[in-house]
């Protein structure tokens, strides 16, 4: 009853969450001795490299750092929307046109109706594994741009696709 009344009358602002998030960010910089801009650049470059090999949904991609016992772990949660048959060349890569269906069409057991399915970007991140195992045609996905990386949400999700870790210096 008391709880109910409190919920009813108290303002929803929870500054403790802000405090926790701020602490997370500042301790990451403290531990890695990396400037926040450097961390942002690292995220951007990482997503760019991954998108060379697989089609990703940069709008829902999320790269975070997490403090483990005595180390910092980098966790990348990147929804994969399709597999590239041939990785993009490393050589000068500017804004490519959307890959042609033949280029990205899955080679084995590909559902023919893939093109009719909704855009992969609409999928929840939890479904990314399923998406990765049943790739779809890619013509609907625009190539990722820098702006979309910068706009990626910062909130951490539980599911981790890639986990790289190493000892925290200092």
């Amino acid at each position, binding site marked *: 009853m008391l709880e109910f009344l409190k919920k009813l009358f*108290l303002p929803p*602002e929870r500054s*403790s969450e802000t405090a*926790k998030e701020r*602490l997370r960010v*500042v*301790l990451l910089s*403290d*531990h890695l001795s990396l400037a926040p801009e450097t961390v942002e650049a690292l995220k951007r470059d990482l997503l760019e490299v991954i998108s060379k090999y697989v089609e990703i949904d940069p709008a829902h991609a999320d790269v975070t750092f997490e403090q483990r016992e005595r180390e910092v772990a980098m966790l990348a949660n990147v929804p994969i929307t399709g597999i590239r048959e041939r990785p993009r060349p490393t050589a000068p890569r500017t804004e490519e046109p959307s890959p042609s269906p033949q280029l990205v069409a899955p080679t084995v057991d590909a559902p023919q109706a893939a093109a009719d399915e909704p855009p992969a970007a609409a999928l929840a991140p939890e479904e990314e594994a399923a998406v990765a195992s049943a790739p779809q045609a890619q013509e609907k996905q625009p190539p990722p741009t820098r702006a979309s990386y910068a706009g990626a949400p910062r909130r951490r999700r539980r599911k981790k696709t890639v986990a790289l870790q190493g000892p925290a210096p200092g």
Partner: protein
Amino acid sequence: MTTMMRAFETGATAVASTLASAAAPVEAAPVGQPAPQPAQPQPAPPHGRAIVITSGKGGVGKTTTTANLGTALAARGQRVVLVDADVGLRNLDIVLGLESRVRFHLLDVLEEKASLDEALVRDKRSDSLSLLAAAQTREKEDVVTAHMTALIEELRRRFDYVLIDCPAGIEKGFKNAVAGAQHAIIVCTPEVSAVRDADRVVGLLPNDWHPDLIVNRVRPQLVKKGKMLSVEDVNDILRLPLLGVIAEEPGVIVATNKGEPLALDPASGIGAAYRAIAAKLAGDEAPSAGSDPAVSGGGWFAKLGALLGGR
């Protein structure tokens, strides 16, 4: 200055031997209590645990925690000495109500101006609790680390627990306080600055230490409203074994005013929380010592506050 230099050259052994040879006057200790350690030609191996109470940030409750934890451990029959390592800002004596009994201090012992027995102050309430006060008119830089290490080792021969009240900061005073210790208790309040400093201090401690955490000054009402970091939030960041949680209660201020640690007050929730922490430290697993702030003493008070419409 000359004395210091000489002492520095001869190093730890000089201090240790002086301390050992000065053990005789212990016999003259007040009656009714066995002397902590009979004078022996060969000093016993150090058996006590030396624990530094540290935080990085000032004003989070290191001294209060040291005083209460020491009092609670002594009440359990342990032989405890509290060492105020905050040279220049002596406070532990006044929190314990022992300020009028201090004759000699830490630097007097380190510089061989007084024996350890002359400098150790017996607590008013418990015969098994002693205090070694800090120097008030000296500076932290005056302490030679090797001497401090030797002193703590000697105290570990005489006492079961050596609790070292660390100064704020991470400079020489911190390093000296940590030097002779084997374990650390981190005191942290649920504030961003305290958590960040605690994290920094943990990074400065030896890698094989696994410091315990006490979260102090928790206000359950504010935590419930999302206006204060919860104990879980704090430890999500710090990830240390949680030794205990202490709620904020006006009783602490009153107790400090009087120089009477709450650990002896059977009616105080804070006192109960410190006694539970002492039990946990001594190896008796206290039931849920502090996983929930309500257990630590703010409990009934906070509930009452909620009934009355919140603080």
